[in-house]
């Protein structure tokens, strides 16, 4: 890894404008001759959720803060698992159908253990802290925003989502 090159590649991908997420982009982004281990997490749109048949999804995002959260997740992984680490995070935005790729996290490190653990740590932050919302479309034509995790918790009187 050259000194001037960022160890992180972080993307919000509008699938209508930029096309689908590509696993190869993640592998290329974290490739490094010094790193022998790459772990990749791929999140895909599944056909069922809570017993309902899902036909597609819409992802809404607050892009600048999402990128900031991805950056903090990657930096935290580097602090925890060592400076020899490269990280790629990309999340799709817009309309996806069953089987489409929604999110990719890839981490490269010198050995496998750090890659596995850092990849897990980063995807958990993306799932719980990134400003991303999922609207599911069902086979009966209805749709619903899925319940999620409240951010921060510093707000007095905060309640769970209805």
């Amino acid at each position: 890894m050259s000194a001037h090159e960022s160890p992180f590649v972080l993307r919000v991908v509008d699938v209508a404008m930029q096309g689908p997420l590509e696993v190869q982009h993640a592998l290329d982004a974290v490739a490094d001759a010094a790193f022998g281990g790459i772990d990749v997490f791929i999140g895909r749109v599944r056909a069922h959720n809570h017993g309902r048949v899902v036909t597609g999804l819409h992802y809404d995002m607050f892009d600048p803060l999402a990128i900031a959260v991805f950056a903090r997740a990657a930096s935290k992984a580097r602090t925890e698992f060592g400076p020899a680490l490269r990280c790629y995070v990309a999340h799709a935005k817009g309309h996806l159908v069953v089987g489409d790729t929604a999110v990719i996290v890839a981490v490269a490190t010198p050995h496998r253990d750090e890659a596995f653990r850092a990849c897990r740590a980063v995807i958990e932050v993306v799932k719980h802290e990134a400003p991303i919302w999922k609207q599911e479309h069902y086979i009966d034509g209805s749709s619903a925003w899925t319940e999620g995790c409240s951010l921060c918790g510093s707000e007095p009187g905060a309640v769970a989502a209805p």
Partner: protein
Amino acid sequence: MSTVRVQVFGALRDCVASGELRVDMPALSTVHALREAIENGPAAAWSSSAQALLRASVFASESSLLHPSAVLPEGGVIALLPPVSGG
């Protein structure tokens, strides 16, 4: 007074067709004061489930969440974020 523009996301879009609330606030108002102004203003007409969603939501700038006691940043985007469900 100045007009604060608040972008909404996720299920809050169903309450705010334009995707943006506009609230007149005195200079140096806090995030908490903005919340109260929304609760007593545009959100007063919302359904009880939408009001509960608002209470579960937090405010943010483009770079971080905003604590209730923080003074509203000038000029930048303010976002109102309901519970998240990415990935």
